[in-house]
């Protein structure tokens, strides 16, 4: 068993040792349902698909994922266990990956527990299950990117509230980076190249592309590489802040 999986198991165990896991899953499912049925108009649309469910995921994740991510490192730092963890014979990357993986698997579980919606839509009509599968995958990948950002923000502060707020802000910028709110702020002074680069960072754009059923390499790669970069940044931040 590798160090990463030992760490991930311990982390996952600790989610379920407290009400955290149950509260999170419950709220995720309830809110997902509210968005789908009331705001998304699941029945009124008269279409057999899960678009109303998935299209709200970026917004749902925007405040639910930081709630999971904020404790990743802040808590270790605050309780002092970071000193225990990082003097054990494992690398920083083992610890970063193990913790991330536990959180990611956990959001995957919450996502998977929305399966009654999938059953419902299959009972009511004949949806394109390929598209639904792609949407699930895309949603999970996006959750991973949110988590990786949160992991880094959490490593920056021993205060979980600060970790939560900074994660929400950064994730919000990434979610909307292709939209006027962000781009207008850059227009006029930033070079076009930078504006294009930032515009291409939008979670919404990439997620929408995947949830249309087209699992494009570009979009998958976008979320994967963003996750990798933020996790690497987490390791760097931990190294720099270790002495504090």
């Amino acid at each position, binding site marked *: *068993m590798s*160090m990463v999986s*030992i*760490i991930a198991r*311990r982390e996952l*165990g*600790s989610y379920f*040792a*407290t009400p955290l896991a149950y509260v999170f899953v419950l709220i995720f499912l309830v809110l997902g349902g509210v968005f789908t049925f009331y705001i998304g108009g699941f029945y009124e649309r008269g279409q057999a698909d899960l678009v109303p469910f998935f299209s709200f995921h970026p917004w749902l994740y925007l405040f639910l994922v930081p709630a999971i991510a904020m404790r990743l490192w802040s808590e270790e730092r605050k*309780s*002092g*266990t970071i*000193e*225990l963890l*990082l*003097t*054990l*014979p*494992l*690398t920083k990357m083992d610890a970063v990956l193990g913790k991330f993986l536990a959180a990611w698997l956990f959001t995957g579980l919450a996502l998977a527990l929305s399966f009654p919606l999938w059953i419902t839509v299959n009972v009511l009509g004949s949806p394109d299950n390929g598209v639904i599968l792609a949407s699930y995958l895309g949603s999970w990948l996006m959750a991973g990117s949110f988590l990786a950002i949160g992991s880094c923000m959490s490593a920056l502060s021993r205060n979980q509230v600060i970790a939560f707020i900074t994660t929400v802000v950064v994730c919000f910028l990434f979610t909307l980076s292709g939209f006027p709110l962000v781009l207008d702020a850059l227009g006029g002074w930033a070079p076009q190249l930078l504006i294009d680069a930032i515009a291409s960072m939008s979670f919404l754009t990439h997620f929408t592309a995947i949830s249309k059923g087209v699992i494009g390499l570009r979009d998958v790669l976008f979320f994967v590489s963003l996750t990798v970069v933020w996790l690497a940044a987490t390791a760097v931040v931990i190294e720099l802040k*270790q*002495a504090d």
Partner: protein
Amino acid sequence: MIEVSHLSRRFGSFVAVDDLSFTVRPGEVLGFLGPNGAGKSTTMKMIAGFIAPSAGSVRIFGRDVQQQTQDARRLIGYLPEGAPSYEDMRVMEFLRFIGKVRSLRGADLDARLDSVVERMDLGGVLQQRIETLSKGFKRRVGLAQAILHDPQVLILDEPTDGLDPNQKHQVRELIRGLSDEKIVVVSTHILEEVHAVCNRAIIVAHGRVVADGTPAELESRSPTHRAVHLHLAEAYAGAVAAIAALAGVREVRADADGKRLLVLPHPEASPLAALARLVHDRGWVADELHVERGKLDEVFRNITREAA
């Protein structure tokens, strides 16, 4: 063997540890003493590999903590200050996790777990969440995780801080019970602890070593080392002058009523025998007569103040 050579650590412009060098050999239980803020914890953290030195190196049996990090860490058991642990875990679950990270498996792991549970007397709390345990038990859980892999080197940062006298006694017994072959470094600012468990003491102040020796050697640096306390039943006339005239007596201090006397000897002299004879010959009644070993905290205060 732990070789600390020219170890320094700066935090911004503040120098926490300043060119520290010392070696600890197997069988030594080193008390690492110093006032708060002297750089004790920072040094312990660098030995354990938690923070990197600004300069210098630490080698554990030849393995550099910064270069051969994993190899060095495998040899070390570390109890960080305050004995942090994952409080939402149960004791057994926590120790098992540490064991797995320490690459213990199957029967080996079970045997080691049984051994530390027995040694730390944790049998009754194995299924309790760590957060529900008393401070003393938490400390024992911390010690248990540190010795789980039977390490050659044990680094304990203030292992008895904040415990009640019984718990302190227990923890000291545990440290004393460790094998003679091991290296133990205990940081503390409690001086009685040095007497209780250490066979060597290093005093640091402002990040530097200011004294290094056995507890007895350090005590002999006390001004009251080998001084004799004499408590007479009444204030006899001429007693102070008679005692001061004895060979080897440097000074006699008497308190206001003249009954309590402190006889300070010249260096290397031991006036006890002559004093006892004098008391006997003059027919004085003495309620108390004993020799001071020297006060470690006096030495500690003098040395650390000089350094400031």
